[in-house]
């Protein structure tokens, strides 16, 4: 059993490991996303639901409105549903396609196609620029606690320790990023992208998981010290052009390629890209695997993923605690297709039973 005390010990060891100098002659791998040409994509999600009763489905659509790195295109669908409508969540602005199938439909199905364009992003964190202030409503929204991301108690205590001695928001956010990278680890056995129950992670000392755990932890920690932050839920749509096998897709079938990334708001910089969870993914998965923190590929990813990310990932939305329209069911975040048959939610982490398939096509040459 892992106790919180063990976790803190582990954290100390991990932090010590980080401080070790790199071996002489170690090469720094290239992972350097920079804003450049836009790439056009289309993602197709196909659902086929069991005919065991009245069915509804909800499919996330690209909803982020951030012209620096994503441009939304059109979404279209083919279905035998009784009704199909785009529903926009008032709080977060997330959009989904809500389908209701008629009672007795023998083969409920839908195919949704979403077009969008992406490009790399990177902030020059050495230089502040003139950036409009974050609106009060957004500041409040991206500082508040969610059901799974409290911002008080053990979360704030942990963040304050991680950022001790730092004064600027940039330095505090970076210190917390380094703390998350040093103290968490990716667990290949975690189903899907994880759950993101931040309080349970900190309290039990089990700081393992996947992106929805590790980046949610980062977002909650950063929010707890007064820096706006958000988790963006999405899906990888292309291989990494930097040669990182772990940070891109392996084929055009992306059914299990969901991934979330984190953003922090820094006055003078705007929304800044971060992704501590992907650093831990490189540690665990980048061939040959189980890499050390001073492996050049890890070092490069760790340096880049505070301030930059690659444009091979579609961000759907930054919503939390969504009640699915037309249903009593609530989801902590909307990254997977959801469906309800005879009043019971299907397991979105089990696409083969659900069932659904998602494909990505790059339209630009």
């Amino acid at each position: 059993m892992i106790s919180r005390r063990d976790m803190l010990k582990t954290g100390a060891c991990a932090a010590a490991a980080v401080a070790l100098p790199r071996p002489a002659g170690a090469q720094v791998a290239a992972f350097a996303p920079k804003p450049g040409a836009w790439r056009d994509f289309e993602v197709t999600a196909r659902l086929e639901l069991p005919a065991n009763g009245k069915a509804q489905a909800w499919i996330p659509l690209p909803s982020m409105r951030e012209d620096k790195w994503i441009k939304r295109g059109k979404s279209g669908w083919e279905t035998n549903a009784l009704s199909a409508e785009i529903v926009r969540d008032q709080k977060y602005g997330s959009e989904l396609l809500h389908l209701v199938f008629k009672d007795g439909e023998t083969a409920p199905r839908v195919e949704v196609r979403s077009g969008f364009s992406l490009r790399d992003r990177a902030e020059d964190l050495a230089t502040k620029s003139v950036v409009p202030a974050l609106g009060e409503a957004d500041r409040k929204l991206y500082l508040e606690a969610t059901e799974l991301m409290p911002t008080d108690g053990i979360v704030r205590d942990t963040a304050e320790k991680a950022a001790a001695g730092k004064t600027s928001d940039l330095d505090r956010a970076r210190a917390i990023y380094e703390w998350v990278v040093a103290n968490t680890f990716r667990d290949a056995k975690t189903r899907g992208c994880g759950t993101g129950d931040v309080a349970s992670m900190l309290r039990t000392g089990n700081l393992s998981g996947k992106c929805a755990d590790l980046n949610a932890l980062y977002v909650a920690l950063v929010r707890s010290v007064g820096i706006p932050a958000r988790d963006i839920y999405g899906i990888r749509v292309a291989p990494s052009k930097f040669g990182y096998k772990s940070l891109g897709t392996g084929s055009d079938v992306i059914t299990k390629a969901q991934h979330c990334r984190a953003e922090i708001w820094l006055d003078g910089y705007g929304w800044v890209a971060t992704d501590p969870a992907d650093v831990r993914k490189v540690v665990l998965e980048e061939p040959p695997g189980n890499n050390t923190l001073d492996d050049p590929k890890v070092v490069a990813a760790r340096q880049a993923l505070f301030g930059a990310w690659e444009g091979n990932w579609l961000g759907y939305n930054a919503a939390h605690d969504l009640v699915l329209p037309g249903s009593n069911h609530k989801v902590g975040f909307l990254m997977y297709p959801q469906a309800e048959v005879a009043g019971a939610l299907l397991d979105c982490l089990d696409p083969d039973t659900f069932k659904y398939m998602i494909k990505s096509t790059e339209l630009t040459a």
Partner: protein
Amino acid sequence: MAAVKAPEFRGAHRLGCRLESFRRFLLAAVSLIVVSTSGAADEFRPWPTETAPELVLSQLDGPGIDLAALRGKPVIVHFFATWCAPCIEEMASLNALAAAGKGSPVILAVSVGEVDARVRNFFRDRPVAFPILLDRDRSAMRTWQVEGLPTSFVLDRDLRPALKTVEPLDWTSPSVAAALAALPSTPPKSNRGEKETPP
């Protein structure tokens, strides 16, 4: 044990001498165990509240369960999730406790915030001998002020709050067994004649 003096005795006078005596007995027993043992039960602590919250939930593949109907045996209410690694290990030890026999408490395992299908798949591979309740919208977790998983509560046979732990436990350890054995074993007078209701 300064920690055990504080809030749980505040307001106890309002409930009269009988309840205060009971609480003092319970607290003394638990304190003795905490002092005299090491290991998992170090994390067992008194549950400083006067009455347990309600708990009425759907059961996975069974009829709904109301905690209030279980008066007559000690009850463990265990909040967990299938994604929670410490919970998986703890579930096995809870099942071992359930299998231990007649004197075992009633165990209610409350799945928090997960879809039925996922919970069903989880227990298909790891069947347990107690009911799985479904807190689909986390409302029970909020009502019981559960801040993280796993969290377990122990109620005495009159459903009075007794113990709480926010750490995963080995429920088969001698120290936990001692803490459970220290719960009052005599049915309160007011409940004589009530039938035990098995889970």
